[in-house]
């Protein structure tokens, strides 16, 4: 029953939501809405579980004095400090908002901006004309890169049109093929879960 119980609950709930989508009479019973509400509550509980999990990992680092445990202390202070501030003052309070806007946002943006430096370094080290295929790759990359910046049209009129064509025709068709495969695969997995054929996520078995 350890396996069958969760399976019955899952398949039953999924079927109600799917059928309610197509049959208005079932939709009116409110079952589907209740299930949607339950998901919201479960997701909120999952956030709390994440807090517990992170605390266990980082407290373990601190207690056992693992390498870099100072970062774990800092992490715990920031995590609980921010959470407590939000709980006490509310997330709309000026102090909470100030910390968010002046610490979280700039730090996040800085990490993202560093990608540009890493990408440039990678371009410099790897874009070498070693073969015909690589040359095509590099030229297409340069066409899109320069065409995406205002300088493209400034240097050669309609360079951006070439860049857009590259993105919307060859790249798009290639991606569409990949996406179709991914979606068909996802649909297959969803169907297997719904029919109870896929049980790995219930038991942890592979």
């Amino acid at each position: 029953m350890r396996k069958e119980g969760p399976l019955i609950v899952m398949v039953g709930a999924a079927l109600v939501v799917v059928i309610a989508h197509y049959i208005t009479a079932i939709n009116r019973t409110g079952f589907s809405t209740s299930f949607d509400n339950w998901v919201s509550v479960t997701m909120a509980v999952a956030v709390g579980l994440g807090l517990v999990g992170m605390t266990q990992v980082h407290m373990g680092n601190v207690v056992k004095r693992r390498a870099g445990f100072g970062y774990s202390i800092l992490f715990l202070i920031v995590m609980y400090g921010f959470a407590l501030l939000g709980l006490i003052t509310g997330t709309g309070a000026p102090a909470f908002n100030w910390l968010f806007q002046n610490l979280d946002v700039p730090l996040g943006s800085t990490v993202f901006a560093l990608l540009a430096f890493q990408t440039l370094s990678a371009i410099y080290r790897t874009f070498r004309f070693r073969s015909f295929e690589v040359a095509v790759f590099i030229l297409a990359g340069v066409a899109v890169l320069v065409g995406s910046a205002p300088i493209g049209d400034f240097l050669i009129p309609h360079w951006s049109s070439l860049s857009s064509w590259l993105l919307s025709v060859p790249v798009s068709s290639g991606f569409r093929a990949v996406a179709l495969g991914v979606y068909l695969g996802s649909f297959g997995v969803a169907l297997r879960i719904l029919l109870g054929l896929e049980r790995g996520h219930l038991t942890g078995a592979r």
Partner: protein
Amino acid sequence: MAKLGRMHARWVWLGMAVLLVWVALKPVTLPMRISPATQHFYDVIAGLPKGSIILVGASMGPGELSSVGPMVTAVAHQAFSRGLRLAVFDPNWDQGPTIVGNLIAQVAAQMGKKYGVDWINLGFKAGGAATLELAERNLSQAARGVDANGAPLSSFPIMKDLPALDHAHLGAVFALSVGSPGAPDFWLPYLTQRINVPLLVGPIDSYVPNYEPFVASGQFAAMLDGSRGAAQYESLLHYQGGATQAADGQTMAALYAVLLIVLGNLGYFAERRLRARPGRREARA
């Protein structure tokens, strides 16, 4: 010459940093050609009836502020100037609504628009697809009855015109898309496709090629082509925002990348020639 291909990464980064600082201090602001995609994005919003509500799907984190933040500001400018209203909401990205709400609040303050009347921030409400499905039937219930700051939704006039996220009450959805869940795997299947409302998308640059098929198929009503599209959109709205300033940096980065490719290849071919020299081969042997 061979050394050109073996430059340490720190010099590459230093060059980039110098160029970016230089262009920030002395902007060049090159003229921009408005692409049909950007024009269409502008036209879709311009075609909405006065008073329509645009749902802003704040699917972003702090890292993407510089990429998609200017898009939010520009959409708010166009929407408010045309008498449209905005509602910010996201059931997946916990930090997105706060960031987007702050951006819209700045524009609203500049344009004299009132919170709760012309726009509202419903905040992050956990639950993903289930919360969005619930919002399609009862938005107040999906938002737990309060806005992002915990104020009761019943106290805001805008909510009388937005009891649910459905065809009758929404003019369009403007979804930011910086990862998953984003526009193609969340907003499209769980909202706009079901309720038949135009989906406008603001992605980061790297997602533009991935999203082109959705634009071609008409599933995305319109899309801004990353920061380039955002800069063009600002140009259409006749104001210089973050994307226009970033365009200078983009120009410098593109030119610098081309220079690095040239230098790297000069070094690569010089080294190959050096290795192919008979005297060197013999000396090695």
